[in-house]
């Protein structure tokens, strides 16, 4: 049974096309230009879905994006707005609520359940017996509305775009088009966004005068310099006119546009409001706009015999269109004359309509034109407080900030001419307010001579006021207020009676407005029903909160491409080539090992190894006052650091908590190089800048971030000197000329301007070589090549971690935590309380006697047991600390640890119990030194 009409003058379908598609397993065809739902309607389908709670049959109601009954699964995409989405050949579509089947008449079943399913019913039941609650939970979850999310990855979205329009117009109906045209004619850069597939708003489905006006507007718009985005939506206005636009029509999928708008012009028109009465959700009950869209855009006849309930001109126009299309008008009910509809009757669709006075009219279509909701969402997001105007039965905008304006139906009613003259003035004024650089633009565009200059004085806006409209919200019988949530008038009343006397509470209790329509259809009726139930004036129902997004936006488009950088050292090509095992360390991806970390340790301890330490933070400091800054940020003494020397230091925040550590070298009188932990580099840089900017702007210190300027490699092991001697020019490497903790500059493997310092985390004789980054790989490869006969190997982070633990060096953030003050690291000698001031000094002084825990070296009594890091340490049954680091030491052939213990358990020789994650326990002894290996440091100094 086809419902497709002969050609209609404004139709948007291509009759020469035939697009096959599937719906609920059956085969259908539509035409290009059809939406999925118009194609189904043309094929005579009436029941499109089942409702969420009562599983009632539902059909087309608004025939646009907001249609609550037309959320389909399309392929692997859930919740597609099928009354908006254009049909594509081969689409596989289905309705989402499959139980009971669409055809099955479940009215009896659902009605029996309805007293049970009233507002907040789940709060009132399933409490006992408690053990059944998990079962109830599972059953309740099967009721979830909506489609199925895809389990398959792989939907990429196009890259996001930034835009800087002087004027951004939300809504491409006649008013929005005119505002855009007039702003552009004043030289503003204008973006016009409309949700529909074409510009024109309601003119698209109106009469021949409307179509003429539209054709004229389209011509002018095309001539004006306006960027037009259709099938797109302005979904949010955020602080400082940061505006989110979702361009659904982008060929590669939804694309997010972030616009910093000079002025946002809100011109979304009006949304038609349903009336609440019994049976108002039956298939065949449609809004006047829906009837006209189906008839005039898609040439679909929505029924054969209609009752039209009309409170405004749109109702009359719909009746005329219906009659014109051959639909019999069984009754025209004029609400302005006090008549109305009492209820619609039928099972899977309207069969008859009961009118005031008890008269029942047979009909398969009931068209209602009962008023409007002003979609003020974007205004609310801008802080505007719309007020309810009882005369016109809708909200009107309140006071606006300078950078937001409104025009069109949201402001008031009138002829097309009235709307256009208001919109033209708004467009001019928006252009003026945006303060755009019209002069520049005029010079750039040859045709710009035709542009009028922006006005200097504020543009006077003609008045545009809403017309009076009868207050039609809630009928005399209880009907649906929220179609996607199955909330009725009765439910709202019940909620108010139960004490939910603020509208916000009632909405939450009944879930009205919480569903996929986001309140667009139901918010006024819910407010009115609640005002009536609480005995308050409708006018005082107050504004409602509209939260972004105005229309649902996809995660994929919001996400765009993942733009979180990963950092690699300049030596990465080598690591990749040899297949190093990577590890993530903050932003850095580093080699964890090259196959066998224990063997790497042995190689370093017995001959020589090289590790890539490029991620080490490096900051160059220059200027007269650098020593003062170092004194302030490190806990130890710095003023006497000689040129050519390197010193280790700990940095504390002002609460005495350790924040970073590292070394600083003095290259020359006024030139220093500081290193930080890899993850602390950016924070330390900020920290130094902050002291300089806020406390000592007079100091002569300049900072340069150098981390990426150098490739850094530590050459460690007894043969490190022998190896470097083969490659280094201009630096004496013997212990006397180049002692431990000193720095030298020179040439390495032919690369000039390298600097070397003697120090390292491993405890071996070691030289850290810093090479201008571009030559890093060359030097690294030269080291390995030249060291081959010495047994030189690359070693990774894991071997270094083992060796540093053997040496008892702590890692900030692993062996310390957010409360560890410097004394707890056991390095009190590095805290110089003679200095007049340094960051953390005060707290360290006050807490010296009791700084909570202490970092100690621990050795399990059973040398084969390595307690996992974070194992808890007990004494008796009291928690006294935790293992912060642990490894099997290849050098010592036993397990070794660092631990944070309370001070009364930190004395050397104390035996504590370590509680392992597998619930076994091991006893462990506190060692005298942090270093498990070579506590005197003789190897290092060699």
């Amino acid at each position, binding site marked *: 049974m086809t419902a497709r009409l002969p050609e209609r003058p404004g139709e948007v379908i291509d009759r020469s096309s035939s697009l096959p598609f599937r719906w609920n397993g059956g085969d259908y065809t539509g035409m290009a230009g059809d939406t999925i739902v118009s194609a189904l309607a043309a094929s005579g389908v009436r029941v499109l879905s089942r409702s969420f709670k009562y599983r009632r049959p539902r059909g087309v109601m608004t025939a646009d994006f907001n249609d609550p009954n037309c959320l389909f699964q399309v392929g692997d995409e859930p919740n597609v707005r099928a009354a908006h989405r254009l049909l594509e050949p081969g689409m596989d579509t289905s309705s989402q609520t499959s139980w009971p089947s669409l055809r099955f008449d479940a009215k009896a079943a659902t009605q029996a359940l309805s007293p049970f399913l009233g507002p907040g019913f789940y709060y009132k039941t399933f409490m006992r017996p408690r053990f059944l609650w998990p079962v109830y939970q599972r059953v309740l979850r099967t009721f979830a509305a909506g489609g199925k999310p895809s389990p398959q990855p792989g939907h990429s979205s196009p890259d996001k775009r930034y835009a800087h329009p002087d004027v951004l117009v939300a809504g491409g109906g006649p008013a929005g088009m005119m505002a855009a045209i007039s702003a552009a004619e004043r030289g503003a850069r204008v973006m016009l966004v409309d949700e529909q597939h074409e510009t024109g708003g309601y003119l698209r489905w109106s009469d021949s005068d409307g179509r003429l006006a539209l054709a004229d507007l389209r011509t002018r718009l095309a001539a004006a310099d306006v960027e037009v985005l259709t099938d797109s939506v302005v979904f949010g206005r955020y602080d*400082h*006119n940061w505006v989110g636009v979702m361009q659904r029509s982008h060929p590669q999928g939804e694309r997010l546009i972030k616009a910093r708008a000079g002025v946002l012009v809100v011109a979304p028109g009006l949304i038609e409001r349903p009336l609440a009465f019994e049976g108002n959700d039956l298939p065949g009950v449609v809004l006047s706009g829906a009837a006209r869209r189906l008839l005039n855009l898609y040439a679909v006849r929505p029924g054969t015999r209609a009752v039209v309930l009309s409170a405004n001109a749109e109702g009359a126009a719909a009746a005329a269109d219906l009659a014109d299309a051959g639909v019999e008008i069984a009754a025209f009910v004029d609400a302005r004359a006090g008549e109305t509809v009492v209820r619609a009757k039928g099972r899977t669709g309207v069969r008859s309509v009961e009118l005031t006075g008890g008269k029942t009219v047979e009909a398969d279509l009931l068209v209602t034109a009962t008023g409007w909701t002003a979609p003020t969402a974007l205004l609310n997001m801008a802080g505007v407080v719309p007020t309810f105007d009882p005369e016109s039965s809708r909200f009107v905008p309140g006071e606006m900030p300078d950078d937001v304006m409104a025009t069109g139906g949201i402001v008031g009613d009138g002829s097309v001419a009235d709307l256009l003259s208001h919109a033209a003035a708004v467009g001019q004024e928006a252009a003026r307010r945006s303060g755009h650089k019209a002069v520049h633009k005029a010079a750039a565009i040859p045709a710009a001579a035709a542009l009028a200059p922006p006005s200097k004085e504020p543009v006077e806006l003609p008045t545009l006021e809403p017309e009076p409209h009868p207050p039609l919200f809630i009928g005399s019988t209880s009907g649906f207020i929220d179609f996607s949530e199955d909330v009725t008038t009765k439910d709202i009343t019940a909620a108010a009676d139960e004490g939910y006397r603020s509208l916000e509470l009632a909405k939450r209790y009944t879930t009205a407005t919480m569903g996929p329509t986001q309140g667009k259809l139901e918010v006024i009726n819910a407010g009115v029903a609640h005002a009536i139930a609480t005995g308050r004036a409708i006018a005082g129902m107050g504004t409602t909160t509209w939260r972004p997004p105005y229309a649902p936006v996809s995660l994929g488009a919001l996400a765009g491409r993942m733009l979180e950088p990963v950092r690699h050292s300049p030596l990465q090509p080598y690591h990749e080539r040899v297949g190093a095992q990577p590890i993530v360390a903050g932003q850095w991806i580093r080699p964890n090992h090259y196959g066998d970390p224990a063997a790497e340790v042995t190689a370093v301890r017995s001959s020589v190894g090289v590790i890539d330490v490029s991620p080490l933070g490096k900051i160059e400091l220059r200027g007269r006052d650098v020593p003062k800054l170092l004194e302030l940020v490190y806990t130890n003494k710095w003023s006497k650091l000689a040129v050519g020397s390197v010193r280790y230091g700990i940095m504390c925040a002002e609460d005495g908590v350790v924040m970073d550590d590292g070394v600083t070298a003095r290259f020359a009188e006024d030139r220093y190089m500081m290193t930080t932990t890899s993850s602390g580099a950016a924070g330390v840089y*900020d920290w130094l*800048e902050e002291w300089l900017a*806020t406390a000592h702007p007079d100091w002569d210190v300049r900072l340069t971030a150098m981390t990426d300027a150098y490739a850094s490699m530590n050459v460690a092991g007894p043969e490190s000197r022998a190896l470097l001697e083969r490659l280094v020019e201009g630096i004496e490497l013997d212990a006397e000329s180049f002692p431990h903790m000193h720095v030298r500059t020179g040439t390495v493997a032919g690369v000039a301007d390298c600097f070397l310092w003697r120090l390292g985390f491993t405890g071996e004789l070691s030289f850290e070589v810093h090479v201008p980054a571009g030559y890093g790989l060359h030097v690294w490869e030269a080291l390995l090549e030249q060291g081959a006969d010495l047994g030189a190997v690359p070693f990774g982070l894991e071997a270094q971690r083992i060796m540093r633990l053997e040496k008892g060096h702590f890692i900030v953030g692993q062996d310390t935590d957010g409360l560890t003050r410097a004394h707890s690291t056991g390095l009190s000698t590095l805290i110089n309380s003679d200095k007049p001031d340094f960051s953390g000094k*005060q707290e360290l002084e006050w807490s010296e006697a009791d700084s909570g825990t202490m970092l100690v070296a621990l050795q399990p009594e059973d040398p084969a047991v390595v307690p996992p890091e974070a194992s808890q340490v007990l004494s008796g049954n009291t928690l006294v600390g935790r293992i912060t680091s642990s490894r099997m030491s290849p050098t010592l052939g036993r397990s070794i640890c660092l631990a944070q213990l309370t001070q009364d358990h930190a004395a050397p020789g104390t035996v504590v119990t370590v509680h392992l994650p597998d619930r076994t326990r091991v006893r462990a002894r506190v060692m005298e030194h942090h270093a498990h290996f070579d506590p005197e440091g003789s190897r290092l100094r060699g």
Partner: protein
Amino acid sequence: MLLIDCPYCGPRNGSEFAWQGVPSPRPDPASTTPLEWRRYLYEEDNLAGWVEERWKHRSGCRAYLIIERHTATNEIRAVRLLGGTPL
């Protein structure tokens, strides 16, 4: 997304700036007491209204700025360099 008019860089997105809150003066380290110091470290006025805060143009020129912002509306009415150094 705030729009902050950096005296050096001009109007830039708020995400380039790091918020540092309302600065409180650092007590004299020589004479301070634990109570005074910890008030400095931890206590906040946390006003709802116009405040003068410190921000840093972290992903820009790295200047430290004093910004007058309304903490209930996020409106910004003045931006200047910390210390008022003339440009």
